């Protein structure tokens, strides 16, 4: 009798364990999972944090407004330290956890390195920041983005420079895929705008001094300098340019938003012009988002927070409509259309983001600091 009780108890316990395991597995399947591979230390850690904040806000909104509890979203953050090998390791780790959808791999270099694995494992990548022109082509249908590529950004800067009657320009660029991509695109298209690129100079990571570059550019006397460098380097260069009285107009891209530029350049940030891929600065959506963001994180959102937010929303919609099927998702996104916080979001047949108008902004003094303010044309 005792033996029977023991036997049935063991069987019962085993059934409970099996049921528990099965329940957990089912729970995992019904939950929508995404991974976000961001840099949380190193040179661009601030951008990683900004994106994380934007993505977190989107995640919280989605989970607070669920129609079906099965559709709850889980977002896993991984720190890549802005290194491509680490990014690939983290992608493999995420894949090991059963994640097939990636809402960010921060950095074109990193994406480039991860694409072969993503293709091999049939993963879906969506980015809000990666701008290297050939990524979509290389991704062969697995990589999408909601950020215009370098060619679009260079085009907008050149167009603005042309409007300001700039004839000669010099380029300072970060010696990585991102910086080189922007530089190459600007050099290629400058002629179309009757702008002569008189010099291009690379900047290395943590360059100790910018005095030689500022001296050189001062002598070549350009009307404008395009700064395709990281915000801290850009800020330090501007300070040096101010010291050496280099008189030129300075243009840059969205990465000059945030505090790093002003912290380094101080008052030399005054008048710096930037183009950012937002085209509805005064929209109700953006102002609502800004209010929510400030309430949640006690800071102003930047283009990285906005793109992070939009990317999570887009990917969530695509996953819902595809029933978590990666191949279906790849087809659905090409037909996708929505109004995001940053701009209208849609893709062409190849999967490339269709860029909208950029906002032109100029740094000017506000209180004790300098902030980018939109310029109305």
């Amino acid at each position: 009798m005792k033996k029977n009780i023991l036997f049935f108890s063991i069987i019962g316990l085993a059934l409970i364990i099996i049921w528990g395991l099965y329940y957990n597995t089912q729970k995992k399947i019904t939950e929508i999972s995404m991974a976000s591979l961001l840099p949380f230390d190193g040179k661009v850690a601030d951008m990683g944090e900004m994106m994380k904040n934007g993505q977190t806000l989107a995640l919280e909104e989605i989970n607070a407004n669920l129609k079906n509890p099965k559709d709850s979203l889980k977002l896993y953050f991984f720190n890549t330290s802005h290194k491509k090998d680490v990014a690939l390791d983290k992608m493999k780790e995420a894949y090991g956890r059963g994640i097939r959808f990636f809402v960010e791999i921060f950095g074109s270099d990193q994406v480039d390195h991860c694409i072969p694995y993503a293709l091999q494992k049939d993963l879906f990548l969506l980015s809000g920041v990666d701008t290297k022109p050939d990524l979509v082509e290389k991704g062969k249908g697995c990589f999408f983005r909601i950020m215009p590529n370098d060619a679009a950004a260079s085009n907008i800067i050149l167009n603005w420079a042309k409007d300001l009657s700039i004839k000669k320009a010099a380029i300072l660029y970060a010696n990585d895929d991102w910086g080189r991509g922007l530089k190459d695109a600007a050099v290629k298209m400058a002629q179309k705008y009757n702008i002569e690129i008189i010099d291009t100079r690379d900047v290395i990571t943590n360059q100790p001094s910018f005095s030689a570059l500022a001296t050189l550019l001062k002598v070549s006397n350009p009307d404008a300098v395009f700064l395709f460098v990281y915000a801290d380097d850009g800020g330090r260069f501007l300070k040096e340019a101010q010291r050496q009285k280099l008189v030129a107009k300075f243009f840059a891209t969205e990465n000059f938003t945030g505090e790093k530029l002003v912290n380094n350049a101080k008052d030399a940030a005054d008048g710096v012009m930037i183009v950012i891929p937002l085209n509805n600065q005064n929209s109700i959506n953006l102002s609502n988002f800004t209010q929510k963001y400030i309430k949640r994180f006690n800071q102003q959102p930047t283009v990285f927070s906005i793109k992070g937010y939009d990317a999570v929303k887009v990917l969530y919609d695509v996953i819902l409509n595809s029933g978590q099927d990666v191949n279906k998702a790849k087809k659905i996104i090409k037909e996708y259309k929505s109004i995001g916080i940053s701009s209208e979001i849609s893709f062409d047949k190849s999967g490339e983001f269709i860029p909208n108008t950029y906002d032109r902004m100029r740094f000017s003094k506000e209180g004790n600091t300098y902030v980018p303010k939109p310029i109305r044309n």
Partner: protein
Amino acid sequence: MYQNQFVTKMNIELVKFGFNYGILLALISLGFALIYNVLKIVDFSHTDRITVAGYSFYISTGYFNIYLSIIISLIVASLFAILTERIIYSTLRTKGSSALMLSSFCFSLITQSLLILIFQSDQKTIKYTEHAFDYSGFFPRELILIPFLLIFLFLLDQFFRRNRIGISIRAIISNYERAVFFKLPVNQYISIVFGISGLLAGVAGVSLAISNGVVPTMGFKFMIYSFAACIIGGFRSLFGVVIVSIGFGILINIAEAYTSALASEGIALGLLLIILLLKPKGLFSEKLRII
């Protein structure tokens, strides 16, 4: 003709700002050379004193005015150097120069890792706005560094020539065993040398923190250049080290303008290699000399 004028003007500017960079290198290299002379090792953790001074300055400016912050940072850098020597190097001194050098390298990495853990690896900037003088193009701190270095060299010279402790330190440098035999307070005197080198690193650290902000690896970039300046100058001629550091600053600036930032490092180190092949003991005197 018109273009030549521009090129000449550019070269003058490059030399001017290179000189300025060289002064900073000289401060760091001098500290390197002083430590080498007493311990006969290359102290890899010397450039971390720059970083420690930078972070001390960053923290201090949050609470005190800039002048008090500078003083605090210099004291912290000197104490850090002295404590490093007292706690780590003095216990390993008997184990030979290889053990000392390895421990200095390990300590450098540990310091950087600790700073990353405490402050994270992203750049922190100092809330202080500086403007260059109109007529010279130099920032006030840069103009202070030039007389500081000259006065410091003069005082160091007088210290080693006329002061009892200075003369004793020279005795330690010349013959460590004999100095121990004559019961000179070797440990205290070595600590004084470390304190002086920490002070020099502190000055460089504060200047760098104002211009570039602080990151845990901010000193590391200068290790190669300072090390090279010491070898070319000859570790034992402090004046030679200063001259070569200034020359190095100018060379790096010119190379950067005419080639690229990446190539300038290669050119500087290429020069080091050539001089090492031609004059393995450096360009200047082999005896300890200041001027």
